[in-house]
């Protein structure tokens, strides 16, 4: 199974059709993400693939939340691909992982999004219900 996955992406757990865990690694020598592995959690709704899965980073002992201006410290990712508008049913776990990989690879800013603290403290919505405002076309 792993043989089919692109480098830097590993399947951790896919016991059921509700939740999958994937590990991703940034392949180039980006100093922000060097020697680190990040864990992604995919939660599929009943209407996947018509509806986007809920994709978040999870924090564990060995897996931090990557620093990125579009990733909140609670693991919520602001990426149009994962939003209702940007999602397309032709995407799959592999392509989402690769998109996130390249999103991290291309990043040079070692920072969290603006208002990270207050968002992390106050947000009670599920990631897919958070309405993001996509303004940055550089990622």
């Amino acid at each position, binding site marked *: *199974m792993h043989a*089919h*996955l692109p480098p830097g992406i590993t*399947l951790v757990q*896919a016991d059921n*059709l509700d939740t*999958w865990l994937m590990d991703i690694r940034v392949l180039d020598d980006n100093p922000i993400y060097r020697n680190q592995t990040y864990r992604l959690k995919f939660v*599929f709704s*009943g*209407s*996947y*693939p*018509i*509806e986007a899965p809920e994709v978040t980073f999870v924090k564990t*002992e*060995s897996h931090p939340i990557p620093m990125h201006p579009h990733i909140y410290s609670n693991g919520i990712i602001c990426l149009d691909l994962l939003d*209702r*508008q940007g999602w*397309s*049913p*032709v995407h*799959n*776990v*592999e392509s989402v992982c690769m998109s996130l990989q390249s999103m991290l690879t291309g990043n040079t800013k070692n920072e969290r999004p603006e208002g990270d603290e207050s968002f992390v403290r106050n947000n009670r919505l599920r990631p897919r219900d958070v309405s993001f405002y996509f303004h940055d076309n550089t990622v």
Partner: protein
Amino acid sequence: MSAPNSPTLGLFRSDARPGPLTIPPPNLEGTATATATATAATWSDPRQFVVGAPPNPPSPLALRALTSPSNRRATLAAPTLPLGHADSIRKRSSLPADIDLSTLDYITACDENLICPICRCPLDKPVRLACDHIFCDECLNRALEAQRNGERNCPSCRTRVHGWSEDAGKQKHKTSIPRILTQMLDELVVRCPNGKAGCKWQDKRGEVQDHVDRYCDYTLLACPESECGEVVPRKHRGKSCLHFHTKCEDCEQSVLRLDLEAHQESECPKRAKDCSKCGANIPVRELISHLSSKCPETIVSCPGSPYGCSFQSPHADLKPHTKTCPIAAMAPFLSAQQARQDTQEAQQKLLQRKVDVLEGGFSSIQSLLYTSDAGTRTPTTPLEAMSDPMLRSGSNNGAASASSTAPATENPPFDSSTEHLLFLHDSLRNEISRVENALAVLDARTTMTLLNESLRAKEEMAHTNAAINGMRMQLHWLMSARLQAQREQSGPRAGPSVGGGGAGGAAGASAPMLRPVRRSSEESRQKL
């Protein structure tokens, strides 16, 4: 289908076995159930089938609706849906319906290019968009339906799709795909969807519908007795209604006539059959286990087969072999070893994880110790930063030499952090003793100064006392001299009176000739 379980997330595909469909679109399911219950009322009433023209026969339209693609998902989901008995019967008897090609078990590997990018199954009724992307008709419709902002875009390339309409009859966005692709898809070999019931058929996908509709012995059809309302597999259809209870002639158990054969084949506790290989009479219940392990004619492999022995023989001949086969002799030991190795590996994994956790903790402590680069000469830890001023004050007091303060700041890159910690501890201890010494010295010095100061004060006080005494003596003397003088002035008149006149005269005789006065006083004393 190059990799049936590749993680390209064919959620539909992982489901591609006849069974409960976990992902029916909610809207479709809703309507399907609604129509199902609506028609179920007419179907479950047996009286309507007795005579030729029932008052409300299911119209051909309704029948078609039941077998429509949108309904077939609900049909397949029927066994798991909590529907009433009548409903489930109606559903089963409504078969044969259109088969959901995505739930079929594909035997041939399908080319990746023939897989729908949405459902990840071999394309089912493929359609092509103007941008040349191909999807299953139903997948595309569901994907386009879900797009909310009015504009419809190709799921693959987001090119605008023109001519889409929710009404399937008015859709103009799609064109058919080349015939060669359809043929390639139809030639994929699949298993019969009734495979679980026992059908062994497998053939081209293009023929599966025909097979299920007309030939498959396991397709469930309505019972020939129209009052019955139950369903039977096609192979029993030729007989009359089999839905009545009967007694098994061997075990006297009451079973449904339909299930009698299966009961006698494998369940009946009293029935016995001759084993096809060894000829022994074995109860049917145990026949399967007998054939697989006990039958002397069954070909079994040497117990050492997992460890390399390739010997295979009928059960009866195995014993002589196991006596001579060294691997078979070793097998129990080897398997015990294997089990031990497995448990050890599991333990090792656990330990590895523990070590990882501990190492993580250790490295975090290390990083706490070396927050900044080792090359900088600034105090490397808050502890050292704190101790530094103390070190300096210690050396200023001269209570201790500065020899130990130098290494603390000059060679921070230690070999190991423990060494560093130990060193820190040592230097702190030195510091404390030095500070103690300094305190003692200070104490002594302050006592000395205090003592000195007080001595001097005492001396001064004695001096002042003496001076005061002298002054008092003088005052005394002056007073008595004055008194003497007054007495002499007012001698005969006032006698010894020393009233206000004396006080008034004191100012007048402020600068007296001391000697004569004193003499006079002595004289007066003598007089007295």
